[in-house]
């Protein structure tokens, strides 16, 4: 805690006068400073927390946006169990978390280890791998839509290396649409994960690895038993960020497939949007949003605990 905040329980328990002083200091916060705090806080309360609460109450109603919402209790949640698209969306969301998280972490960590030490060309390699992450997910989606077209670059490349049989309409085929989108999303995410791990590696103690090398540990053993344990903090952050991001994922799927064909690439987030803004089932859509929230909240708390741990 910051030294200006004297009202911590530890300090106040030592000295009887301290709580009084603390109280006086609270009052000494100038009115203008309260304005400094309360204006941003009010903006966030009005545009984040109030709407979030509204979603919970809306999820217990049937509403098409016009007139009054009709309370239906838990019907929207019951309806999800009979909705085959929800089943697809949940499965796809789990696939998304596992594949998107797993591959971007594997590739990102591998590249971070490879590009950790300064040597000629490292800056260039790093920049090239970072670059996709600054593009909008919608732009990334469009890039890859061009590449995936029938007769497009992906298929031509496959034909050139003799894999004609593999070429197909990647985004129009229900079996491949989700994975085709995943490739694009991972392409963009790897740079970000690499940034996080590069910072984590910088924080590792090099003398430990040198000592292990002197003791005859192989490169893999040094990484597995010396370096990797020191990355635990980064791993937690990466894990939480990946799951939170996966549950939010919307733009890239919307830009590439809109959840199609035949809902085969539908995620909970895209189905929620479609139900809310295309089908105007606002109550049902809110219930889906609540499910996304419930799935995310554990990881949000993990991130928050981690973010404040060193305090």
């Amino acid at each position, binding site marked *: 805690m910051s030294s200006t905040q004297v009202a911590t329980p530890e300090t106040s328990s030592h000295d009887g006068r301290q709580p009084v002083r603390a109280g006086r200091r609270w009052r000494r916060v100038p009115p203008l400073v309260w304005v400094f705090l309360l204006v941003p806080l009010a*903006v966030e309360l009005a545009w984040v927390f109030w709407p979030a609460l509204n979603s919970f109450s809306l999820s217990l109603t049937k509403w098409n946006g016009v007139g009054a919402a009709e309370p239906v209790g838990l019907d929207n949640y019951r309806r999800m169990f009979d909705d085959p698209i929800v089943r697809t969306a949940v499965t796809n969301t789990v696939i998304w978390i596992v594949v998107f998280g797993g591959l971007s972490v594997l590739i990102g960590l591998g590249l971070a280890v490879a590009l950790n030490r300064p040597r000629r060309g490292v800056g260039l390699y790093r920049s090239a791998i970072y670059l996709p992450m600054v593009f909008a997910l*919608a732009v990334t989606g469009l*890039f890859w839509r061009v590449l995936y077209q029938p007769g497009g670059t992906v298929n031509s490349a496959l034909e050139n290396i003799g894999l004609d049989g593999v070429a197909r309409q990647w985004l129009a085929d229900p079996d491949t649409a989700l994975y085709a989108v995943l490739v694009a999303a991972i392409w963009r995410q790897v740079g970000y994960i690499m940034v996080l791990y590069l910072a984590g590696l910088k924080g590792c103690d090099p003398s430990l690895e040198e000592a292990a090398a002197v003791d005859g540990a192989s490169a893999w053993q040094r990484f597995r038993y010396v370096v990797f344990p020191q990355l635990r903090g980064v791993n937690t952050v990466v894990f939480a960020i990946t799951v939170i991001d996966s549950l939010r994922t919307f733009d890239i799927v*919307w830009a590439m497939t809109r959840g199609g064909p035949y809902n085969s690439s539908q995620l909970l987030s895209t189905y929620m949007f479609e139900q809310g803004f295309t089908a105007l089932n606002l109550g049902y859509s809110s219930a889906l949003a609540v499910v996304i929230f419930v799935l995310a909240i554990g990881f949000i708390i993990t991130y928050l605990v981690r973010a404040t741990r060193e305090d």
Partner: protein
Amino acid sequence: MTTETAVDPGTVRRSANVGPRRRGWVFHACMAPLTLLWVAPMVFVLAVAFRSFDDIAARGLGALPASFSLDGFSTALSEGAIGRALANSAVVTVIGVVATLFLASLAAFALSRHAIPFSRTILLTMLAGNLLPPQILLIPVSSITQSLGIYDSLFALIVVQVGFGLGFYTFVLHGFMRSIPNEVLEAAVVDGAGSARIYARIVLPLCRPALAALAALATTWIFNDLIWALTVLRTETKFPITVALLNLQGGFVSNWNVVASGAVLAAIPTAVVFFAFQKHFVSGLLVGANK
């Protein structure tokens, strides 16, 4: 070189200092193709953007370019209205970034330099708000903007972006401001400076590195947003670049040079921000996760 050293063990020992260089060769042999693979999608899209429609129609989308034409760009800018969309995005991004960082720095200043009760709880609640899945806010935000009469305006989009981003920036700036030594501020207090002056003259200038990092990050986040724009906007003339691009894709179904040109035009601003502020950008990404 590898065979040589393998044949004669004596060479290996003598060339011990060549080791790193040889490993360097292996390193580049692995990294260069991988990097090319990473860059390839961008290069191919660029190639499509600069081809003419006839070339693509005759020789296929995947063929090597045999033409050079700016038709894709001019069509995207005129008929696709990409220029207007870029202007909308610029307005929203500039105002959004400045307003968010200003409000966040005020809140961070209050929370970090004053004995506000429950400041930690307030700070974490604000950060938690930013981590919420936007899905839980979309429908109520849309109806709130409608009842306020600001639905379908750039103003609504800016307000939503500011509200949703605040928590993260406040959290980061709070950490930064707290690290300013007390002595620096005490001197100003002794001189009789009020809170507003301390904020504007001392704290804010000291926060310049953090503000630069967050500005680079916020610029790409707001510029790249799609879901909030879809939520609060309906009129085509108000669409930012991301939504306009999806429209372009619908309107020019087989004109891949137009679609690719639009995507390239949308990618250029963030790429420029990235190359101009790469250090700030990377430190901005870290500042949130690395704590």
